[in-house]
């Protein structure tokens, strides 16, 4: 930029130095050297040594940032997030498999957990059914690569749903006790006023946040893209986020605590891989909250995206369609015989490809709080309204006399998240629960899913319809509610016996940490 004739040196800089926005606090260790000066030597391998006054050399530690440090804040020294994310890749899985084969490391039990959304994406590409995809993945991982178990995240998801519903009901009841019942009456009145087309009057009274100590709205927690964004930019909404673990991390606890204890295996002797629809799940897996210090191991060691698994098939020269239909594992799966066809089929959960938390919690709350057994859009007790765009929907639970008992919403995508956050921060959020997801279109449209494919001439799917196509395949797994899943109930009971009810209760929950700007960071100083 040319200087103007006044030569005013002001903030001319448009260049964003990567370290400016870095939120990772840098420890500046005070040097022992009282004089304060030091000499640095670089050897021919590129190693740095500090030469102290008496001539002794000390090798300097290489500054590094690992995926554990990464909160996707986009202010990183290694600004290519992809560099960090490749630390969790299929290469790591191949390494562990090789180590098992050549005995160079102690043997590890390798477990792969597959998410229903990843299955749907593969099913769309290869034009198979959900169960066929799962069986072929079992064949690929177990028989071809040497993995020991292949599990279905849908199994662990039931645990996440039940715990989420339990948390919501606790919070709703606490909310009522802390003055929420008066607020609810107010909403009812306003609802009636609106219904009789009265003009919208003054601003809604009473910041909800002050009154009920942040019990409601409860915001969904299973999307790490959303959670990391909230931690980094909107720390004030963290108390509203559900503390229930996501299905991925529930499976992590099931594998590394329940299964480890049951099979008398140390958690660090298990290598747990999860196949997920996005890359943010890798960040979730490497959170310090999901790290077992005692055994120096993570609940989920490695997350592979659907795309990475598809790449593995190519790398291993495996024709996915030619793989046989093999039996699935007998535990941690949600499959059964379809009563009509008597064929093996995979079961899912009611709701969108983002996991169905909203639908399940709504149904549970209707039953437990209002004693309504059967609620659906068919019997008019649930009314769904689409908002300004397709990724924002409102769900209302109506009593038979027409009163609105519960107000839920689903908000997918950045712009809808902005609106929800703004409403929550200003106390104007009228919803009791919001299913917040970072990706428009839900998890079927995750960043790690397979891109729209050129299928054959008969069944071509337009690019813009691809996500809906994947979602439709996802929904072919008929919903079996967690309450009807005896297997998960049995596992849960056994887990409480193997460990203790308190221990298990703690493992089902997690916590969040707001990222604070460390203004003392010397790297952040602008010169």
């Amino acid at each position, binding site marked *: *930029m040319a200087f*103007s004739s*006044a030569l*005013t040196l002001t903030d001319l800089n*448009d260049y*964003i130095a990567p370290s400016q926005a870095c939120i990772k606090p840098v420890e500046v260790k005070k040097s022992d050297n009282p004089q304060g000066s030091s000499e640095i030597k670089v050897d021919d391998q590129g190693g740095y040594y500090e030469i102290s006054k008496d001539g002794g050399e000390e090798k300097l530690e290489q500054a590094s940032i690992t995926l554990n440090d990464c909160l996707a804040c986009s202010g990183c020294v290694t600004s290519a997030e992809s560099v960090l994310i490749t630390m969790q890749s299929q290469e790591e899985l191949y390494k562990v498999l090789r180590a098992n084969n050549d005995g160079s490391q102690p043997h590890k039990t390798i477990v792969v957990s597959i998410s229903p959304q990843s299955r749907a994406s593969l099913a769309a590409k290869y034009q198979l059914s959900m169960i066929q995809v799962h069986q072929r993945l079992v064949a690929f991982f177990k028989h071809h690569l040497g993995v020991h178990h292949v599990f279905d995240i849908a199994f662990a998801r039931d645990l996440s749903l039940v715990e989420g519903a339990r948390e919501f009901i606790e919070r709703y009841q606490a909310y009522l006790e802390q003055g929420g019942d008066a607020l609810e009456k107010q909403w009812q009145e306003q609802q009636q006023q609106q219904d009789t087309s009265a003009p*919208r009057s003054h601003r809604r009274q009473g910041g909800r946040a002050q009154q009920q100590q942040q019990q409601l709205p409860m915001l969904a927690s299973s999307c790490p893209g959303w959670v990391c964004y909230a931690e980094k930019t909107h720390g004030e909404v963290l108390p509203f986020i559900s503390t229930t673990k996501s299905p991925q991390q529930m499976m992590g606890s099931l594998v590394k605590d329940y299964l480890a204890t049951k099979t008398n295996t140390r958690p660090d002797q298990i290598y747990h891989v999860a196949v997920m629809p996005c890359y943010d799940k890798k960040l979730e897996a490497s959170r310090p909250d999901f790290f077992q210090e005692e055994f120096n191991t993570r609940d989920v060691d490695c997350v592979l995206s659907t795309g990475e698994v598809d790449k593995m098939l190519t790398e291993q020269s495996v024709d996915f369609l030619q793989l046989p239909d093999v039996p699935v594992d007998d535990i941690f799966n949600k499959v059964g015989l379809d009563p009509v066809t008597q064929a093996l089929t995979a079961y899912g959960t009611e709701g969108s490809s983002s996991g169905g938390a909203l639908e399940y919690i709504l149904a549970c709350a209707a039953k437990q709080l209002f004693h309504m057994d059967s609620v659906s859009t068919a019997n008019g007790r649930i009314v769904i309204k689409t908002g*300004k765009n397709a990724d924002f929907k409102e769900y209302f639970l109506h009593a038979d006399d027409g009163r609105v008992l519960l107000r839920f919403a689903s908000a997918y995508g950045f712009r*809808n998240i902005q609106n929800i956050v703004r409403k929550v921060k200003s106390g104007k959020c009228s919803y009791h629960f919001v299913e917040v997801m970072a990706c428009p279109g839900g998890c079927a449209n995750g960043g790690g899913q397979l891109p729209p494919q050129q299928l054959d001439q008969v069944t071509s799917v337009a690019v813009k319809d691809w996500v809906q196509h994947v979602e439709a395949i996802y929904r072919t797994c008929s919903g079996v509610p967690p309450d009807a899943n005896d297997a998960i109930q049995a596992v849960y009971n056994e887990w409480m016996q193997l460990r203790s009810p308190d221990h298990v209760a703690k493992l089902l929950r997690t916590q969040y940490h707001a990222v604070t700007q460390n203004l003392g960071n010397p790297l952040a100083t602008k010169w």
Partner: protein
Amino acid sequence: MPQLELVATLEGHQDRVWQASWHPTKTVLATCSGDKTVRLWAPISQNDFSTWQCIDTLEGAHKRTVRSVAWSPHGNELATASFDATTGIWENDARDNSWECVATLEGHENEIKSVAWSSTGALLATCSRDKSVWIWEVETDNDFECLSVLQEHSQDVKMVAWHPTQETLASASYDDTIKIWKEDEDDWFCVDTLQGHTSTVWSIDFNAKGDELVSGSDDKTIRVWKMYEPNNTQGIATPYGQPVWKTVSTLSGVHDRCIYSVAWSKVHNHIASAGGDNVIRVLAKDSETLDDNAPSWNVVASVKNAHGVHDINAVAWFPTDKHGDWLASVGDDGVVRIWRLIAD
């Protein structure tokens, strides 16, 4: 030759002034500054325009420089965009004639560079160094809902400007391009990317009809762009069935340094431009232009050192024919000047 005559000098800001916005109907000018305030100016009498006073100062809402200010089309609200990453919406309380910040729009990650209201006042657009353009919808109750976050620019977005009649938005960026945005069913998307400038595009403005756009750039040129609809007679291809914009005039040599601001008068069709060479210039389309697809534009008036040795950050024409020949300019000297274009 026409001339630019100085009408009044408005002093009061404590730091550089970044932008000026005329009230849509009244003779009131809003200016925003590095001193974190917005000042409203009006002439002390309707007979003598040579002396103006600061009738109001809007302060206390922003923690950093206020970079952009814009009146709503009905003149009852002011939007202020700040380097503190928030946009303030202000209303005048008629009872005691005081200005109150009634809403604060958050969401941008860092400095907001520009704010603009759509022609009906139903939408608001902001853009920022975080490379995004946000579109907000004005709801009742001073609630603003985020309609879309557009992240297709690859660099800092310097300015946003709405089409004079349609809900079409243009944005100018450090990535050397201008993008045109429209709404489609569910979301907003980029309809066209105008390439041609070889450096940052600092400023853009539509003409009165909205079929032409002027842009001023760091590459020291001004470009006039024309919109070509699908099935146009000139045979310009329009893929995707959307209008495309093409440069019809490139004016180089008019300024010696970067151009920070361009303004296209909706009254008399002249273009004003100013920037780092401290000169304000007024350009008029050559009336003998034979081909509308290759018009000539000529400098008809200029003022050297309009703000002394300081950069001129913005110029703004009076929006109606009440004072259509007035041009406001603001600069790094902290001073606001009002000029009149006198024909001869």
